[in-house]
């Protein structure tokens, strides 16, 4: 018998800050190839949870394994691509072309003293092509629109050829048309390149079609395994109440 090792194996995670419970008893597994959305109210702990998965925040108790290894022993960080919340709000003056930023994605993969190899160059081009921004290569990041920046940030994450992409509200400040195109792109990365996708969002209506599982994080985690019934999941409708309903209608009009 062969068991698949989950990318993330999270057990009984708790996070308490100054006596206040932020996350309570969270457990889940994420397997290769999955497409998972995380929703939940502001301050529900979504960002905190992701930061813990990445080792940026220490849980009060509980265990996180990445590719079967304890987090503190995990070394192959290039396998994980991370785009933080508000990543598109770059410092306008930061001296970086699109290519400069995407190249950063290769650093993790290289040995510390190695120069830029032809493979690095090819992977950078590939990531730019995947995000459809090859023509922006030499533009300064500060001059790009929100939607373009979003693609640059994801191209950077893609450049290390990760197994999983973790995106924290990648859509803040992006218009509806770009959002749609964006979700199409994510779905394509998931299906064609077999990249596992975990992302936080507030617009469940737009994404309901493609995603495999839905996590609702509001101090506790509720996991909804059937995407078709997603909007009728008890906790989802409890949380989003009227919202979920409205989004549902909205979808049918398209």
């Amino acid at each position: 018998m062969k068991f698949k090792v989950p990318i993330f194996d999270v057990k009984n995670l708790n996070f308490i800050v100054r006596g206040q419970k932020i996350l309570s008893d969270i457990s889940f597994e994420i397997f290769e190839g999955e497409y998972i959305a995380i929703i939940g109210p502001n301050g529900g702990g979504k960002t905190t949870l992701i930061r813990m998965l990445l080792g940026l925040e220490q849980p009060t108790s509980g265990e996180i394994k990445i590719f079967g290894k304890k987090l503190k022993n995990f070394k192959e960080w290039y396998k994980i691509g991370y785009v933080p919340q508000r990543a598109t709000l770059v410092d306008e003056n930061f001296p970086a072309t699109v290519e400069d930023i995407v190249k950063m994605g290769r650093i993790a993969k290289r040995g510390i003293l190695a120069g830029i190899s032809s493979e690095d160059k090819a992977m950078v081009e590939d990531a730019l092509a995947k995000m459809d921004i090859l023509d922006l290569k030499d533009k300064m990041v500060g001059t790009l629109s929100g939607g373009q920046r979003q693609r640059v940030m994801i191209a950077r994450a893609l450049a290390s050829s990760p197994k999983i992409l973790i995106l924290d509200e990648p859509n803040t400040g992006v218009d509806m048309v770009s959002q749609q195109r964006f979700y199409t792109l994510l779905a394509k990365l998931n299906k064609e390149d077999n990249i596992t996708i975990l992302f936080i969002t507030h617009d469940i209506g737009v994404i309901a079609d493609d995603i495999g599982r839905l996590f609702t994080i509001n101090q506790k985690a509720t996991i909804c395994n059937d995407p078709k019934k997603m909007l009728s999941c008890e906790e989802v409708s409890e949380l989003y109440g009227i919202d979920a309903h409205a989004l549902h209608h909205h979808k049918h009009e398209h």
Partner: protein
Amino acid sequence: MFEMFEYDFMQRAFVAGLFIAVLASISGNFIVLRRYSLMSETLAHSALVGVAVGLVAGYNPLWVAVGVAIGAAWLIEYLRSAFSLYSDAILAIILSGSLAVAVIIVSLGGAFNNSLFSYLFGSILSVTNEDVITIVIVGSISLLFLLLFSKELYFIAYDEEVAQTSGIKVKFLNFLLVSVVAIIIALSIRVVGSLLIGALMVIPTVAALQYRVGFRNTMLISLFFALFSVIFGMSLSYYYSLPSGATIVLSIIVIFIISLIINKK
């Protein structure tokens, strides 16, 4: 105009000055982008404590300054991570604290004299052979480190957390960066002076940023500006017998103003 190079002291000053221009501008890129500008100013004042000790106790002030500046850099990093204090407040405290300590040491030791003045504002006359050798050797090692890790440091400056989640040893590199900056600042004191070195680190980068070009070009432009202002400033210093730190800093400020005007949107 080349007759100034007939003097040994001028040759020494130029070798030291050009080296320092390279070191200050390259490290300055990371310092400015990491929002550590005030850090260089603070470390320069800490280095002054080393100068004071050196002057009073009769050691080479340069070496003592290197030691004290590194100690101060580590103290700042420690305070930043161990207590929830505003970083700029920590810097302000250490800056004025260092100055106070330096002044007391100098007063008690009776070393308030011309030599101290040259450490404050730089002097082309004061650069010794030993200084040049120290600057070239220690400076080369520092430069090697900066170039070796420039991509990582750039990534960290761009986004520290994303860099960390990409497996970059952020804490270690931060630590090394502030140490190298402390060393560079201490080395620069002879030529630029401890009250003025912060400007040579920060302004070339800020001026280069006005041209809105990528990382590599920004670094090259800042390097060019720093070299130019050191050459021009030291020449002015020679012809008008002015403190070299002051003429260098005024040159770079003129370059900054021109850059601002040229690139006005």
